[in-house]
C-alpha cells in the first residue's frame, strides 16, 4: 500500500535513469562506426546473396510478442525451435530473445524499452513506435538492403498489397522497417447462426437486416435450447465492443457504418467511421434491442473469454464475428454434439449492399536498431521465412509440425521476421482448399494442409475436424464467405494505418470517450442524443485535428 503510491511514476522515472545511462554511451556508438558506416559492409558486398550464410555466426538480440499458451513439439520452445535452428544452420544467424511477452502487453513493454533506450537489435513495433523511433533517427535504413537482399519471391509477397505495406514502413523517403503484412480479408465480419436452433424454430436464412433482427428476437423468446427457461439472448457483445468475437463491427456494417476505421466520405475526404451518422442509426437500433432484452445486460463487464463461455453454455445462437469463430465453439460441440453453426454474409438494412470492414494491411513492423552491423540479416530471415512457409522448398513437417497427439503446434507463428500473403494470394489458396476438400485431392492444395487433413477426418465422421470444416469447408463456412466477399468486392478497407502527431497524444482519450458513450447509449443510461454530443466532443478534443492530419498524410502518400 505504501509503495503503491508512486509505483507508476517510479517505473517511468526509473526508466529515465536507464535512459540517461543508455543515452550516455549511445551517441558514441554510431560515431565510432561512422567511419565504417553501419551496414556499409553489407552494401559494399559486391554479390549480395538473399540466402547467403555468414561465415562467422552473427548474434541477433531480438524482442517480439509470443503467447504463453503456445504449444511446441516435445523439447522445443519459443526460444528454441525449427526457426531458430534454421536461422543458425542455414543462415549463420543466432537469434537470442532478450524478452518476449504476450501480444496484449507487448507494445506497452516496448514503450518502456524505447524510453529506457534499451533496444534489441531486431524487434517488432507498431505504427506509433515506428514514427517515434524514425523521427529520433534510431532505426537502420533498410532501403538498400531490402533492394539488394530481398529474394524475388519475398518482393512478390511483400508488394502483393500494391505497395501499401512498404509505404507504411517508410519514413522521410527511407524504408525503416519491414511490414508484417497479412491478409486483411481474414478480418471480414460475418454472421454466424446456430443451425440446430434455426431448424427447431423454423427460421430461414436472413436476406435483410430485418430478418437478422427477427432471428435475434426468436432466439430470445422462442426458448431455442428447450429448457423452458428464458435464459438465452439475441445478440452477444463484449465490453470492448469490437474485435473478432461477438463484435459490433459486422452489425454496424449492415447499417453502412464503419466504426474504428478511416473511410472516405462523399467528397472523397477521409473521416473516422465511429463519428458518422450511420453509427448513430446503429446505436439507436442496439439501444432498442437492449430495451427488448435481446442483449445480455452484463455485456459491459464481459470480455471475449467470458462471452465464449456463454456460447459454450448455449446462451447465444446469432453473432457477428470473424471466420475463425467456430474454433471457439469446439467446447460447445463436445458438450452438445447436436449443436451446429454456419456462416452467412452480413446483410443490409436497406437496398444498398452491405460491405464488411477490414483493416489496414500493415500495422506492425520489424525494425533494426541503428548501429547494428548486419541490417541485411533481417531481410535474409524474411526470405527464409517466406521460402520455408510458402515457397518451393517449404516443408510443413519442419516449420508447421504437429505434436505427438497430432495437434497443430505454434511453430509456424514463432519466426522472428514474418510477413504473410496478401489478400489476392490467400483467396486463391482458400479456393484451392475448398476444391481439394470437395474432390478429396490433396495435390490441389497450395497451403492449409493441417486444415485439409482435419476436414477429411470430419468427412469420415471424426468430430475433431468439425471446427476446421465450419471455418474452411467448401460451403457455409467462414472461408467461403471470405471468397464471396473478395470476389464481389463487398468490403471496405481502413484507409489509414499510420499514426499522426496528435493521434499519439490523444487517441486513448478519444477511444475511451467513444467506448464509454456507445456503451451508455446501448444500455439506455444515455439518450441517443448523446451521440451528437460525443461527435462534438470528439472533434473538440483533438479528433478534428487528427482528421486533418490523416488527410494531409494520405494526400502526401498519393503524390
Amino acid at each position, binding site marked *: *500500500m505504501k509503495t503503491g503510491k508512486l509505483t507508476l511514476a517510479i517505473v517511468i522515472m526509473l526508466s529515465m535513469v536507464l535512459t540517461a545511462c543508455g543515452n550516455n554511451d549511445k551517441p558514441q556508438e554510431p560515431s565510432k562506426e561512422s567511419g565504417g558506416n553501419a551496414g556499409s559492409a553489407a552494401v559494399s558486398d559486391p554479390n549480395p546473396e538473399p540466402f547467403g550464410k555468414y561465415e562467422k555466426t552473427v548474434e541477433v538480440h531480438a524482442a517480439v510478442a509470443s503467447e504463453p499458451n503456445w504449444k511446441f513439439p516435445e523439447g522445443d520452445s519459443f526460444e528454441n525451435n525449427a526457426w531458430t535452428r534454421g536461422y543458425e544452420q542455414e543462415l549463420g544467424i543466432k537469434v537470442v530473445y532478450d524478452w518476449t511477452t504476450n501480444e496484449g502487453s507487448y507494445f506497452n513493454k516496448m514503450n518502456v524499452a524505447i*524510453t529506457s533506450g534499451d533496444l534489441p537489435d531486431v524487434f517488432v513495433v507498431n505504427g506509433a513506435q515506428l514514427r517515434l523511433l524514425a523521427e529520433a533517427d534510431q532505426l537502420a535504413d533498410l532501403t538498400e538492403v531490402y533492394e539488394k537482399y530481398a529474394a524475388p519471391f519475398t518482393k512478390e509477397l511483400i508488394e502483393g498489397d500494391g505497395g501499401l505495406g512498404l509505404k507504411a514502413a517508410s519514413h522521410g523517403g527511407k524504408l525503416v522497417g519491414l511490414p508484417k503484412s497479412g491478409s486483411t480479408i481474414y478480418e471480414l465480419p460475418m454472421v454466424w447462426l446456430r443451425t440446430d436452433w434455426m431448424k427447431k424454430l423454423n427460421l430461414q436464412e436472413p436476406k435483410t437486416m430485418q430478418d437478422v433482427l427477427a432471428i435475434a428476437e426468436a432466439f430470445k423468446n422462442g426458448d431455442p435450447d428447450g429448457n423452458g427457461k428464458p435464459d438465452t439472448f439475441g445478440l452477444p457483445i463484449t465490453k470492448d465492443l469490437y474485435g473478432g468475437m461477438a463484435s459490433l463491427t459486422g452489425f454496424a456494417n449492415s447499417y453502412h457504418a464503419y466504426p474504428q476505421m478511416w473511410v472516405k466520405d462523399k467528397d472523397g475526404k477521409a473521416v473516422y467511421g465511429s463519428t458518422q451518422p450511420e453509427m448513430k442509426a446503429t446505436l439507436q437500433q442496439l439501444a432498442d434491442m437492449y430495451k427488448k432484452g435481446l442483449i445480455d445486460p452484463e455485456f459491459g463487464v*464481459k470480455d471475449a473469454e467470458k462471452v465464449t463461455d456463454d456460447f459454450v453454455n448455449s446462451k447465444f445462437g446469432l453473432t457477428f464475428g470473424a471466420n475463425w469463430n467456430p474454433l471457439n465453439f469446439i467446447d460447445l460441440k463436445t458438450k452438445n454434439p447436436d449443436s451446429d453453426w454456419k456462416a452467412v454474409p452480413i446483410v443490409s438494412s436497406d437496398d444498398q449492399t452491405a460491405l464488411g470492414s477490414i483493416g489496414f494491411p500493415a500495422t506492425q513492423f520489424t525494425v533494426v536498431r541503428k548501429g547494428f552491423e548486419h541490417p541485411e540479416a533481417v531481410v535474409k530471415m524474411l526470405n527464409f521465412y517466406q521460402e520455408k512457409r510458402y515457397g518451393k522448398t517449404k516443408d510443413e513437417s519442419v516449420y508447421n509440425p504437429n505434436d505427438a497427439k497430432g495437434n497443430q503446434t505454434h511453430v509456424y507463428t514463432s519466426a522472428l521476421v514474418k510477413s504473410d500473403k496478401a489478400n489476392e494470394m490467400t483467396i486463391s489458396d482458400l479456393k484451392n482448399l475448398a476444391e481439394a476438400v470437395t474432390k478429396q485431392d490433396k495435390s490441389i492444395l497450395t497451403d492449409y494442409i493441417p486444415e485439409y487433413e482435419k476436414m477429411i477426418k470430419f468427412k469420415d465422421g471424426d468430430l475433431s475436424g468439425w471446427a476446421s470444416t465450419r471455418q474452411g469447408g467448401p460451403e457455409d463456412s467462414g472461408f467461403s464467405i471470405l471468397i464471396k466477399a473478395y470476389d464481389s468486392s463487398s468490403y471496405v478497407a481502413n484507409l489509414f494505418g499510420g499514426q499522426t502527431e496528435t493521434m499519439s497524444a490523444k487517441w486513448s482519450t478519444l477511444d475511451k470517450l467513444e467506448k464509454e458513450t456507445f456503451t451508455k447509449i446501448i444500455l439506455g443510461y444515455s439518450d441517443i442524443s448523446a451521440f451528437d454530443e460525443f461527435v462534438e466532443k470528439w472533434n473538440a478534443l483533438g479528433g478534428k485535428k487528427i482528421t486533418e492530419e490523416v488527410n494531409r498524410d494520405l494526400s502526401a502518400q498519393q503524390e
Partner: protein
Amino acid sequence: MVQQQATSRWKRQWPLYAMLVPAIICVVIYSYIPLVGSVIAFQDFTPFKGWFGSDWVGLDQFRYAFELPDIWKIIRNTVVISLMKIVAGLFVPILFALLLNEINKMFVKRSIQTLIYLPHFLSWVILGGILIDILSPSEGMVNQLIKWLGFEPVFFLGDNRWFPYILVLTDTWKEFGFSTIVYLAALTGINPALYEAAVIDGAGRIKQTWHITLPGMIPIIVLMATLSLGNVLNAGFDQVFNLYSPQVYESGDVLDTLIYRVGLEDMQYSVATALGLVKSVVSFAFISISYWLAYRLANYRIF
C-alpha cells in the same frame, strides 16, 4: 564525557545501524534517484533526447494535464474512493481486533486471524475475474441471495451508484486482515494489571474496552491513520483497472488509471509524470499535516 558516552553507544549499537544499510541503499536507488526524473514533468520529453536534451516547457504539461477532459471528475472520484477506503480501512480492523481479542480459545482466534489475512495474498487480476462472477446480476451468488430474499438483482460492477462502494468494500475485505494483526499486536502490549484493577473497580467488558483497551491502542491508531492519509490520492490502480469497464468510467476512473493510459498507452511521459508529481506533492502535504496533527493531538512522534 559526553563525547565518550556517544562513542561507547556507537560501539555497542553499530551492528544495528549496519542492518539498516541495505534498506537505505534500496530507498536511495528506488525512491530518491528516480525523483530526479521528475524534471521531465517540466519538459516536452522525448526518450532519445534524454533528460537534459528535451525542451523545457515550464508548467505547460501541468496546464495540459488539468485541461484533460474529465480531469476534475477523475480527481473527485479518486478523492472520494480513497477517503472511503481510508476510513473503512481504519475502523473495520479496529473493530475486528477488539472482537477477536474477546475470544479466549486460542485455536479459534488464530484460525480467524489467518482466514481474514488470506485474501491479502491474492492479486487483483485473479480477484477481478472472481468478483465479476460472484457479483453477476444473473448468475452470481450475491444476486441469487438477493433474488431469493425477494429483491431486484443489482448490477454491482455496472452501476455507477454502486461501483465506488464495491471498490471500497472489496478493498477493505482484501486488506483488513493485515491491519487487524497490527492492532492485535498492539493489544498484547497493554498491561494486564490495568484490567485486573478495572475488574476490582467493577468495570464490565464494555467499560474495560472503552477505558483501557482503546486508550492503549491510540498511539498505533494514530500511526496507522497518519500513514494512510498519504494515500488520499491513491485509489488503488490494480483494483480499479481490473474491475472497471466503460459503463462505470463515470464513477470509477481514477488518477492512476488516467496516468496509465496517458503514460503507458499514449507514451506522453511528461504529462503522466506531471500528474504523478501532483499526486506526490499532495500526498506529501497530507502526510506532513497529519504528522503535525498526530504530534499535537496524541503527542505521537515517529522520530
